[in-house]
């Protein structure tokens, strides 16, 4: 198991659908896996005080975020019977409709991949210091806060 490996989570800009496809394909050689779960976060074009969000500009406290992602990986591998786990999150500008997060859990049977995926996404939202500036069409912005 590779839970000890330090993984590079952050990617610059949006996460491309081809990257996600390639990641799925790569797991074809791991024939002990029988179930994958994928969560994709997508930037919404919310209407806030009469203005539409056109993008979110993500920033982070890198050192602490990497430490938190590592803790999440360790937790996930200790709690669930996972074969594989990948987490990617965007930094910088991601336009509405584009993907900003990709969580990919794999296990022998479906329950571990389903359950771990949900818990990992919740932990990322509450524990990892990532900040988002919601940019409007007119260039103004507000700082985003996660809803529980």
């Amino acid at each position, binding site marked *: 198991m590779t839970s000890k490996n330090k993984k590079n989570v952050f990617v610059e800009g949006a996460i491309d659908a081809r990257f996600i496809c390639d990641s799925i394909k790569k797991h074809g050689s791991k024939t002990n896996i029988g179930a994958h779960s994928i969560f994709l976060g997508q930037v919404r074009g919310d209407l806030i005080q009469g203005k539409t969000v056109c993008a979110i500009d993500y*920033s982070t*406290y890198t050192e*602490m975020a990497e430490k938190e992602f590592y803790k999440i990986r360790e937790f996930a591998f200790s709690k669930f019977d996972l074969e594989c786990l990948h987490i990617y999150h965007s930094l910088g500008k991601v336009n509405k409709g584009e993907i900003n997060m990709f969580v990919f859990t794999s296990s022998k049977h479906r329950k571990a991949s389903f359950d771990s995926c949900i818990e990992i996404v919740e932990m990322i*939202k509450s524990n990892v*210091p*990532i900040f988002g*500036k919601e940019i409007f069409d007119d260039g103004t912005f507000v700082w985003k806060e996660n809803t529980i």
Partner: protein
Amino acid sequence: MHPCTMKINIVTFGKLSELIKKKVLEVEPGIDVFSLKKFLAREFPQINQLDFKIAVNMELVNENYIIEENSEIVLLPPFAGG
């Protein structure tokens, strides 16, 4: 520096980085996080209504945590990842 103060380094993110420009503060030695928050509210009234957490050495700390001289105090506004 005043003999009865110690220096701490402030690092800010998100909205707080727009509101706090001062990076080094002089505070009372042995100050805890609770008192530091009150100090910050006095020093930077513009952050009074804002919710934020404090991290030291990449870990969130609670209000009883005692801050050491030259510590890097990281002010973290609400998270927005995912």
